[in-house]
Structure formats: C-alpha cells, structure tokens
C-alpha cells in the first residue's frame, strides 16, 4: 500500500568521497529507526529558488520517499509504501 504523507523525520546522510556517493543511512519515523538498505533513485527538483533533493530509498520491508529542503536542511517523509497494491 502506498501512503502519501508529509511529516518531519530524522535522517542520517553519509558522503563517501572515494566513491563520490551520498546516501541516507537511516531514518527515524514515528519513534522507530529504519536502516536504509538500498537507494533506488536520487533526483532533484525546484520550487521557486529552493532546491529539493529526493531520495527514494528502501528499508528491509518499507519504501520511503525522503525529501531534503536545501534551504533549511530539514528532512520530510513524503511517501511510505510496502510494495503491495492499495
């Protein structure tokens, strides 16, 4: 099931300079910590002048759409899914 939400979350973002890769390591949502197992896609978009980075990531059982506002450096969780039909 896909659930569209918009809540502030805590995210740990790592940068590996040897591979020039940036990836979220875990996300804390609703009091629970989910280690990120895979980054599916990373993309960006702008709203006005503000640049947003979107990380589409998966934990063991769930998918998260994590959005970083580069103006405030705050994260929001915009979508959660378990990969099953609605």
């Amino acid at each position, binding site marked *: 099931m*896909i659930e569209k939400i918009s809540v502030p979350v805590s995210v740990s973002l790592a940068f590996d300079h040897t591979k020039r890769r940036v990836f979220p390591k875990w996300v804390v949502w609703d009091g629970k910590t989910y280690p990120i197992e*895979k980054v*599916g*896609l990373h*993309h*960006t*978009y*702008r*709203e*006005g*002048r*503000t*640049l947003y980075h*979107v990380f*589409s990531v*998966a934990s063991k*059982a*769930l*998918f998260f*759409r994590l959005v970083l506002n580069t103006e405030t450096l705050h994260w929001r969780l915009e979508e959660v*899914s*378990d*990969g*099953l*039909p*609605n």
Partner: protein
Amino acid sequence: MDYPTELGFNEKPSTVMHLDLNSCFATIEQQANPHLRGKPVAVAAYTTGSGCIIAPSIEAKRYGIKVGMRVKDGKLIYPGLIVLAPDPWKYRNVHLALRRIISDYTDNFVPKSIDEFVLNLEGYPSFDKGMLEVAREIKERIKKEIGEWLTVSVGVAPNRFLAKTAAGLHKPDGLDEINKGNFRQIYSGLTLTDLCGIKIRNAARLNNLGIYSVLDFYKAPYFRLKTAFESILGYYWYLRLRGWEIDDVLFARKSYGNSFALPKPLISIEELSPILSKLVNKMGGRFRHAGYKAQGVHLSLAYRDGGYWHKGMTTAKVLFDSRDIYKVALRLLTRCPYRKAVRELAVSVFNLTSETSLQLEFFDDLEKKKRIVGAIDDLNERWGDFVITPARMINTKEVVMDRIAFGGVKELEEFTTSLSEGG
C-alpha cells in the same frame, strides 16, 4: 523536381542509433522503489478507476495491460496491479542523466521524447569503437550510473527510421542492427503494421496495390507507392525502407497550451473561469519564459457526454500578459453554445512570435505592463509557481498539476533551460 527512383539499399555503414528506455515511467518507479520490482505496476494519469494508464511495467504488459487502458480495466485483468500517479521530476531527472551519458559519445543527438533518443555518431571518434560496442557501453553505463533496473532497447541502422525499427525488434533490453547485409531477412519477419507509421488504414492502402508484406513494400517500385499514398509520403517510404534519411527534420514549436481533466462535472462559466484562469496563467508563464508572444488563442471543451466544442481567435494585438490572454479565452468561453458538464478544458496560444519590440498603443502603457508581468514572473520563479495569482484563481490550488508529455519533446526545452539556468 525529379527524385531518384532507382535506388538500392543505402551502402553507408550504420551511423544512427535509436535508444528507447523500456516502459519508461513504470521502470523508473521500480528503480526508485525496489519493493515494486518484478511486480505488475502501472503509472496512470489519475489513479482513480477511470484514470488512463500511460505506462505499464514490463510485468504488467505480460498480463496484457496496455497504454491507454483505464485503471479499472487494468485491475480487471490483474487485480493486484499497483497503480501510481506520475512523478514528472523523477522522469525528467532520468532523462537528463541519459542525456549526459549520450553526450559523451556525440553532440549530434536528438531527444525524440522523454524516453527516446536518436544519436548520429558519423564523424565522431566514438564511431571507431563500433556502433554495437558503443551501444553495449551505453547500456552498461545506464545500469551503473542511473539505475540497475533500467533497460534500454537499442537499434542501429543507416537511417533514423530503421534504427527505430531495429530498437523495436527485441523488447526489453534489445540490441539489433538493420543494414544492407540483413535487411531482407529482418523485413521478412515483420508485418506491415510493425512499421512505425503504418497502421490499419495505411496497411489497407498498400494491400489495395498488392503489397501485403514488408518485403513487398520494399520491392514495390516508386510509382506504386506514389499511387498508394497519393502524396510525397510514398517517396518518403521508398527512401526509409532503403536506409536513406528523410526523418531528420525538426519541427518548430507552433503553440503553447495547457489542459485539465475536471474531477467534478462543472457547467457554468462562473465555475469554469477560475480553472481557465489557472490554465492561462500556467501557460503564460511557460511561453513567456521561452521568450514568445502570441497572436491567437484557442479554447476547447470536451464534454462528459462525449461531445466536443472548440474555437480559436486570432488577435490584432500581440499578447504576452496572461490577463489579456484570459480575456480572449473567456470571450471564447462565453461564445460556447453548450451548457453541459465539461470533462476537459484546454487552452492554447498560437501564431507565436519571438519579437522583442512591440507596436506601441495609444491607450495602454505597454512598457509598464511588460514590467509588471516580468515582476510577477520573477516572483513566481523565486518562490514557486502561483505565488502571485489573479484573485479569481482562489480555490484552484489542487487543479492543473505538473504533467509530463510522453510523446512530444517540446516541453523538454523548458525544463532543460530552467535547470541549466538554475544550476
């Protein structure tokens, strides 16, 4: 003008490559969400039952789910179908990433749509590697640099049409070449309607002249094709099938438009005008950003009962201000003789011009108007679309979403320029 009509198959080596991202939107969604991989997924314009499926995944296609089907019909075929709303920026980012990879091999490439590119390697150092080797390398780089779930079908040939045909031979993840050595064998395995541009009506035209297969089509002399198509198109087909280039034309943009499928059946002008205003404002921002002005407005209404009404109007004045375009569009709307439930509202401007100097007017201060419009556009660009809007647009927050064209590529000019400006 005399056209050469005694041509054989083009002897030139294959220099054209056609790249097609398989099941583009659905595959990108599966790339983004690993839990969707291997499952039947469909991206639909709207996720409600009557929403139109615009991209079924490879797995969904195997169940017979096709582009253009309604979501409810897709779910009838496969109840477990996962339906997603489009996320244009995801697809645009992948398109740009593909563009970056391709530009490492040639400058001579054209995006034919969000998921299709045509490359010409003639005269570029990468050609010496061999076309098939370059194609394999691009496929590998896409997996490594964009996403491992993405696959492309690649076709290689002496002209664009045959490269596209070759890309369609083995989907997904195919790699084929059509050249002077194998074209007969490949043509013999195709039917007329397998060719892009030949559907039932054109096939019937050809059948009327005794052309039943692609090989017949190839062997047919020019005069017979001329009779079949009754136009220059016969000659174009004569060249295409022989590997000569005829499709390397770029069409200029002729209009800008926006449309919206109404979730509620609205009837009166009072109900429709806020949406019309939003469509005009969205379109106005886009075509001004691209540096255009217009001298014509077109309005069309599709009704819930299947009916359709449209009207266009050319204007003496050059239009650039959304408020002026809205006035013309509203005048058109008041001329509509029908008052029934509207399904889709569409507005466009035409007779585009990119002239910078304007005919001054007696009563209107055009320079002042230009400055106001420019200031509003700057504000909307800085803070996001629709920060400053006409008051009549109140309560239209959710309507006219960001959409992506999966056929044409005209809109790509807009976001590629805005991205490069934005850094």
